[in-house]
């Protein structure tokens, strides 16, 4: 089966900038513009701009919107007010993950769900299937939005001075609808880098205009390559690596986003059981003494025995150490456990460490 590869509204710009392009989640996306290390460091130290137009948006609206979202979502939207955002998952009944997503509370009866590009089709089908029993309308809006992410310590300055978007009083995981250039845009203080930052949802035309302004102002364009190294250092999961149809948020140690005290939601029973009994494997951090790089799929060993696999690993750009997330048997998941990773023909010692390798710098208040 050959499907035509999709392009975001900014595709021409990436090509013109000479980006290394590669298919990701059905889109031809920029992996890096010149240098993944420079792009990564720009976000940690100054500011960078990402094209994240490939992300999916689904609006849930109607009298029973709150009840419906809470039925398919692990977190509890009753905990937030209009203008706030929650992270959580949609689960299968067995606790496996359909997707991880953000839920924006626009109004009591209106929510915007932001989902992973790779899962758009599957998610929309899942949402529609379960919406049938509720008084809600589902509006798939992915094609309507372009999206840019401005990330880094100077993100707020960039928003204010380059884009002319006022962000005063916005804390992390809040959003505002604003008027800009004659249209209503969504500005949210969110991101996937471990730094302060914003994500802006606007029409494709306005998205291009904002992108151009940032590039003209000398803001570093950043590709998906450093998006992955940045989120990984900050301990953030990627669907497909740390969360899958086989990996529940409990196994991925993301139980804080699963509210077992709320009324029924899909996957609740399985998560409650997993929490009580423990999962056979759980996600841990690993640190190697050597520079060798543990990559996705490599075996984790306890002596000679295979006890798990690496889900993501890099030689960390910020920390200059080789580190990884790995799913390992729970018997060997305790902090400080000495394990090893098979990298090609050799075996390298590794220690179980905390997964948040880099302490995020979010705007909490």
């Amino acid at each position, binding site marked *: 089966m050959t499907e035509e590869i999709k392009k975001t509204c900014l595709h021409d710009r990436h090509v013109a900038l000479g980006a290394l392009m590669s298919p990701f989640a059905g889109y031809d996306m920029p*992996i*890096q513009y010149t*240098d*993944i*290390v420079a792009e990564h460091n720009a976000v940690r130290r100054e500011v960078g701009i990402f094209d994240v137009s490939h992300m999916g948006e689904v609006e849930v609206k109607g009298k029973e919107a709150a009840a419906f979202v809470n039925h398919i979502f692990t977190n509890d939207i009753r905990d937030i007010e209009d203008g706030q955002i929650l992270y959580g998952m949609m689960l299968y009944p067995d606790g496996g993950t359909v997707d991880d997503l953000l839920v924006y509370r626009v109004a009591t009866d209106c929510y915007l769900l932001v989902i992973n590009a790779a899962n758009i089709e599957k998610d929309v089908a899942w949402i529609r299937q379960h919406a049938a029993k509720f008084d809600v309308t589902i509006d798939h809006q992915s094609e309507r939005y372009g999206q840019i992410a401005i990330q880094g310590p100077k993100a707020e300055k960039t928003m204010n001075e380059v884009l002319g978007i006022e962000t005063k009083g916005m804390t992390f995981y809040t959003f505002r609808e604003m008027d800009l250039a004659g249209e209503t845009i969504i500005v949210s203080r969110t991101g996937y880098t471990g730094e302060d930052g914003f994500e802006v949802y606007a029409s494709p035309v306005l998205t291009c205009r904002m992108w151009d302004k940032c590039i003209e102002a000398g803001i570093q364009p950043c590709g998906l*390559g450093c998006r992955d*190294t940045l989120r990984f250092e900050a301990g953030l999961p990627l669907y497909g690596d740390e969360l899958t149809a086989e990996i529940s948020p409990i196994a991925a140690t993301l139980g804080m986003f699963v509210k077992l005290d709320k009324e029924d939601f899909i996957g609740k029973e399985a998560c409650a059981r997993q929490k009580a009994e423990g999962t056979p494997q759980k996600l841990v951090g690993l640190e190697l003494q050597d*520079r*060798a*790089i543990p*990559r996705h799929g490599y075996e984790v060993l306890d002596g000679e025995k295979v006890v798990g696999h690496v889900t993501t690993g*890099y*030689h960390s*750009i910020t920390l200059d150490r*080789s580190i990884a997330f790995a799913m390992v048997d729970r018997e060997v998941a305790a902090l400080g456990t000495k394990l090893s990773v098979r*990298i*090609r023909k*050799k075996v390298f010692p590794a220690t179980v460490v905390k997964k948040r390798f880099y302490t995020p710098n979010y705007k909490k208040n």
Partner: protein
Amino acid sequence: MDGLYYSESHEYVKVEGNLGFIGITDYAQQQLGNVVYVDMPEVDDEVTAGEEFGAVESVKAASDLISPVSGTVVEGNEALEDEPGLVNKDAFANWIIKVEMSNTDELANLMDAAAYKAMIGE
């Protein structure tokens, strides 16, 4: 670079008598981007023409190193252990392994600089 032998998988061999200095080409290092780790064999390990002997890793990916010739490793470039980025600075000066070649006839299967340049479209 003239005087070197090149493989289709972008390794080069610089020949001094029976010794071959094996590294990756400047084109290869450009394609890889920042080299953050070089996985090389131990001294006295055997390498075989056409077979993998290690890897060069960028942030995003690991690329196998394929030996252009057969022989015994007499030295690994230890400088690359602490500073793998030397490969980016000067790929031809910073060879990866030094090999005592067991069959110099194999060099005839490799490309010269002009043929290699033609292959990469320069």
